[in-house]
């Protein structure tokens, strides 16, 4: 299945990737090829098959409602590229 350049741009917007024009072209070609390859799945009859979303035997694990110590803010923010007081800082959000 061939992807259009428009579709690639839309997906890049959803994924928050500022692709270069060269990347847009390359991904259009490469992703089209990948989609061609995965198209073989369309030939299988999976109508009556249940999907597998978890490969685990684990039952729902629940924890008690007990408070545990949080990180001190200086540790929470130690890796922050920008901060103000004990808040993370980002460019002004415009609603």
């Amino acid at each position, binding site marked *: 299945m061939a992807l259009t350049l428009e579709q690639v741009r839309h997906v890049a917007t959803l994924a928050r990737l500022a692709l270069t024009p060269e990347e847009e072209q390359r*991904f259009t070609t490469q*992703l089209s090829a*990948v989609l061609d390859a995965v198209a*073989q*799945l369309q030939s299988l009859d*999976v109508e009556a*098959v249940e*999907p597998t979303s978890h*490969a685990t035997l684990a039952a729902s694990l629940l924890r008690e409602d007990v408070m545990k110590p949080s*990180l001190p803010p200086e540790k929470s923010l130690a890796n922050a590229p920008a901060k103000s007081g004990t808040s993370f800082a980002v460019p002004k959000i415009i609603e």
Partner: protein
Amino acid sequence: MQLTDLTMLELAAKLAERAVSSEEATRACLERIRQVDSKVRAFLRVDEEGALAAARASDARRKAGSPASALDGVPLGLKDIFLTEGVETTAGSRILEGFVPPYDATVVRLLKDAGLPLVGKLNMDEFAMGSSNESSAYFPSHNPWDLARTPGGSSGGSAAAVAAREVFGALGTDTGGSIRQPAAFTNTVGLKPTYGRVSRYGVIAYASSLDQPGPMARTVADTAALLQLIARHDPQDSTSAAVETPDYQADLEAGVRGLKLGVPREYFIEGIDPEVEASIRETLREYERLGATLVDVSLPHTKYALATYYLLASSEASSNLARYDGIRYGQRAKDARGLKELYALTRERGFGPEVKRRIMLGTYALSAGYYDAYYLRAQKVRTLIREDFTKAFQQVDAVLSPTSPVPAFKLGEKVDDPLSMYLMDVFTLPCNLAGLPGLAVPCGFTKAGLPVGLQILGRPFDEARLLRIARAFEREHDFFRRPAPL
């Protein structure tokens, strides 16, 4: 013979006799790294100070007669996907450059509690997406058996470091073959445990329903010993299995007499390297000589595994990697004007081409109008692939196959051809889709001297039997004694 030539268990025995100290063993590793790592380039960073401090603490415990575990004092390496408190962790990505975690992964804590000095962080494909280590944002690692070739991926740095005897063992992670394929390329043993056997807490996620950490070492017994330390139920991982951990050494030498070993016809396909096929066939005959029965089995949906894997893994990855936005940690595009640019430029610059490719594919597969055709359909085919194995394991105790269709390929050979690169994983990824344990064990060399690895797949939580089958072959050959030509 150098100290670093010992296996983990040989070193552990000497530590127990106090014939060698952990500090000596750790210094030997550090020295070996200084000698060979400029060629192998397995390490992203070495934590000399931390490793030596842990080694000295281990020596104090040994002196006091209270070792923390059987492997107390054995130096180990970690794939850079495991979070280490206070030690930079990047998953081979630019976007996490400089990220210093505030906590240890569960397995890291288990290893520290067991007294193992952690020598450093090992190179990997960026966010574990790759089969050659070439998608690392920093540099590719090299195969100690031929420096022009890849050590495989994504745990290539781990495999290379173990094969080059820079560390006694390492931890890797396996999402579609990332432990087993590098092990097969480097004459080492790699085990991908059953999904849920080893905690994923603190392991940077690629594809959450497929990822599984596991041990990499030079021998089967070392692999068993390392698995023993990390196979634990973890209350911080909801997908962790509350299953008892058996003694993985107990039946290691029990042999294969009477076992039924399945040979899946779909794994001997066109395009498989003739030397690899010959080596695997010879290995199968040897298992017969050792008393096992070979059984022809069919895993009919194998040919759909690759497409299924790439859709599911990329979809999960597109969501798992959304947190890398330059707000709370990691690199940020500081010149971004406004919030939108902050996201888009940070991620554009922080991720490499393979990661972007998979984020794009996954975002597309989950998007409105395509979910049913791609993601949901792939989940259903995943069910068919699991059922293939369930049926096969009604007939046989384990399934044997090549680990990779080819031996280690040249660096740069496939880097511009994603589809042919993806084909490298065709034998390893069904195991992840089915959540099963899989093990790669050295089974010979090509004429050019490149290692070949046998893959052994088993029933859920049947790691002990896989180790026992691998050991039966290893005992006959001791390929692990052969050093890489560095």
